């Protein structure tokens, strides 16, 4: 698992590559802390290069979503591969996390 962070206007785009499993998720959760505690801008998770996610990864995403619940900043995800999106949908995470097709569509949405 590796991730890069790119700041675009008021949004931190965190692009994660590889696997979010029981072994890698704690590191990713640690890395996200500075964007969550408290949220100081929008946070967009770019899953384009994420090949694998298990419930350990979902837990990190759920905790991040909760941190944004009472914030005026937005939390969202984008560019999911089909099987990753299916895991989100089976878990009902699509009820509270907006899944965009691209970084661009998120940016366009928050400008409006």
């Amino acid at each position, binding site marked *: 698992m590796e991730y890069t962070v790119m700041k675009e206007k008021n949004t931190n785009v965190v692009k994660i590559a590889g696997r979010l499993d*029981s*072994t890698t998720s704690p590191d990713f959760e640690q890395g996200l802390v500075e964007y969550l505690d408290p949220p100081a801008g929008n946070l967009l998770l770019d899953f384009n290069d994420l*090949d694998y996610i298990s*419930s*350990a990864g979902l*837990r990190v995403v759920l905790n991040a*979503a909760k941190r944004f619940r009472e914030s005026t900043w937005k939390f969202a995800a984008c560019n999911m591969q089909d*099987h990753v999106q299916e895991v989100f949908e*089976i*878990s009902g995470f699509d009820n509270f996390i907006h899944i965009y097709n691209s970084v661009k569509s998120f940016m366009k949405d928050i400008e409006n």
Partner: protein
Amino acid sequence: MKLKLKIEATADQMTLLCATLENLQKSLKCTDRQMFEIVLVLEELIANVIRHGGGRTVEIELDKEGRDLQMIMCDDGAPFDPTSVAPPDTTAPLQERCAGGLGIHLVKRYVDSFTYRRENDKNIVTVTKTM
């Protein structure tokens, strides 16, 4: 194809096992998507053993015949029946959601049968999947 593996019940060994399985994709004759689902099921079940049962070792038996895959996981931890884990309410609002039970919820969605028995002081979980 039949395969028997034994690992220590640790996260590192589990990761190694997942990688080993992915290297066997050709022999298992499954698609990328099916491989993802098989590895996910194994990770969730073994993670449960590590988290709840406190077992030291997990034995995994894979048996693929035609389109049918059977996986048997046997661990020496405390009695723990993963099939009885309460399902999460996936429609609950965000503030009420917790991550508990999600792993087993995913397992149930990706396998065709999921059974548990306790035998000789061991937990034995069997899943089958038709591909």
